[in-house]
């Protein structure tokens, strides 16, 4: 019995190791994901990016779901030993371990998403520019507000929401400094009821455009907007799919584009071990179609919005100059 189990084990390991190796593809990309790929959010986004890279570069791919923190190191090492060229840890929490393993495999590229770490010569990180995203939303809101009062509702007060809010304020001021900007945080990404109350209180104050940035709780803002006279500008995903009547536009975050851009750098030999920040220039951020509001936006306003997008791409607008303190 013992021998049978041993033989089975050997066979399984052999198949496992050989299936990791591949003689066909030149480029082999692996990802370590903190959660399940079916979560409709963070992990699915990474899985989509991995599949996009598979298609675009005809790379061979592999990934580990629900990676336990205690196994980060061994799985990083396992992929590196199996000959993967690019290994990504999805989330800042992979940073410390990536730094450690990267030293052992100098020829393998290690990437950490949503982080700002780097380590020569082979560890880089990337993230989307939250401030730029907010800036564009601020520009759109400032051009389209009728009451001259616009607002931001964030979930927890953490760096991504703080930066998005700062960018939003800067974008509004860039167009018209006399517009009143109200910034609030509900303190939770789950509390839908509170987000709704917050939006209602804003409607009573005369706010007509809100940027909801509170994950699931955004739905509360949507409900309030449907009841009161409020429009929204969505974050990350196209909110017009949720509520087309009240969604002016959304700022889309294209994680796949951000990821494939980094892979592109590697293939073209332009890769540097630094913290990449992805924005409209890389196509990682973009405005969704205005759909129902297409006709309600004047030609001048639309031209101005496109002008700002172009200026951000060409680097003519430096957001840092407009950020408060």
């Amino acid at each position: 019995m013992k021998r049978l189990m041993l033989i089975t084990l050997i066979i399984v390991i052999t198949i496992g190791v050989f299936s990791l190796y591949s003689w066909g593809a030149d480029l082999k990309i692996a990802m370590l994901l903190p959660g399940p790929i079916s979560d409709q959010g963070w992990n699915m986004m990474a899985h989509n990016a991995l599949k996009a890279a598979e298609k675009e570069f005809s790379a061979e791919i592999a990934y580990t779901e629900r990676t336990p923190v205690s196994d980060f190191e061994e799985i990083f090492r396992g992929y590196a030993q199996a000959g993967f060229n690019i290994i990504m840890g999805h989330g800042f929490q992979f940073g410390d371990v990536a730094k450690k393993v990267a030293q052992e495999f100098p020829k393998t590229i290690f990437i950490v998403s949503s982080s700002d770490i780097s380590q020569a010569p082979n560890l880089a990180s990337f993230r989307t520019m939250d401030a730029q995203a907010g800036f564009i939303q601020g520009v759109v809101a400032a051009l389209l507000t009728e009451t001259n009062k616009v607002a931001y509702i964030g979930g927890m007060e953490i760096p991504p929401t703080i930066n998005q809010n700062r960018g939003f304020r800067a974008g509004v001021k860039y167009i018209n400094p006399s517009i009143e900007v109200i910034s609030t945080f509900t303190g939770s990404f789950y509390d839908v009821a509170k987000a709704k109350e917050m939006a209602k209180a804003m409607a009573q104050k005369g706010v007509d455009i809100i940027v909801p940035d509170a994950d699931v709780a955004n739905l509360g803002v949507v409900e309030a907007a449907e009841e009161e006279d409020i429009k929204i500008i969505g974050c990350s995903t196209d909110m017009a799919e949720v509520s087309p009547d009240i969604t002016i536009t959304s700022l889309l975050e294209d994680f796949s584009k951000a990821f494939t851009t980094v892979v592109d750098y590697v293939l073209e030999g332009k890769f540097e071990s630094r913290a990449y920040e992805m924005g409209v220039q890389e196509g990682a951020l973009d405005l969704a179609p205005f759909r129902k509001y297409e006709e309600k936006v004047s030609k001048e306003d639309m031209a101005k919005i496109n002008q700002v997008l172009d200026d951000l791409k060409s680097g003519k607008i430096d957001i840092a100059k407009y950020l408060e303190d």
Partner: protein
Amino acid sequence: MIVSDFITHFIAADLRTATPILFAALGELYMERSGIINIGLEGFMLIGALTGSISSYFFNSALLGVIMAALVSGVLGLIYAFFVVTIKANQVATGIAINIFSLGLTTTIYRAFMGVNTSHPNIASFKNISIPLLSKIPIFGQSIFNQTALVYLALMLVPFTYYFLYKTSIGLKIRAAGEYPQATDTAGVNVFQIRYGAIIGGSMLVGVGGAYLSLGLLNMFTENMVAGRGFIALAAVIFGKWNPWGVLGAALFFGFGDALAIRLQVMGSSIPYQFLLMLPYIFTVAVLAGVVGKAFSPTALGIPYNKE
């Protein structure tokens, strides 16, 4: 903005926010009075919110949604009662287990029923009912007498609970079971039965509180949407000194704090909103410490009853 408008909106927001807490806290009051401390309010509310939402979707009736929420929470209460009364499991541990279990269960069931898509389905929900004459009173009319039926129900439950607990013989038995179960048993009252009843009835109220979230305050179910209200309701029972009127005051006070925190932020106040969010808990601790008069919890609270 006109001041009277502001006050009207403020009181309305206070009531809306206080209602789910009031339902849950009154439910908990029945349980605690009978000697059972149910930490699992958060879980019961989540189950109530989900059942309400799904039932209303399938039967196309918000009223049936609430009834189903009460029934399903009652069944969960029965299971809870079996653990803490019959098997005499630790009440706190069982409550925590229910919280964790419910979070996973509701998420899974909701995904199975509604699928994982971005759009939320149209669900029948409660509409505001304007009470004739009373709603014409300046300031208070539009804020208090123009709410959903569930808000009125919650408010009416307060005098009812007071009457039930203090003026009826069943109420006396419930309170006796929470104070001196041995003596109560000697007097010929079945303590197990009383506690079972209090838990099931109380759980139904807690479930309705959850359903109010998904059918009254909002019109949808989202994962973890109760967001800590179950724990605030626990605090409301203590802050209200185990008395229905006190519980009403506590729920309104917590709702007041929430509404104020939101408005201060919207008005761009420099007072940190975290400070205001903290206030209810500070007051609860103050009550427990005996600063605001003495509060006596039921003597047998949390102790399983063993028949000699």
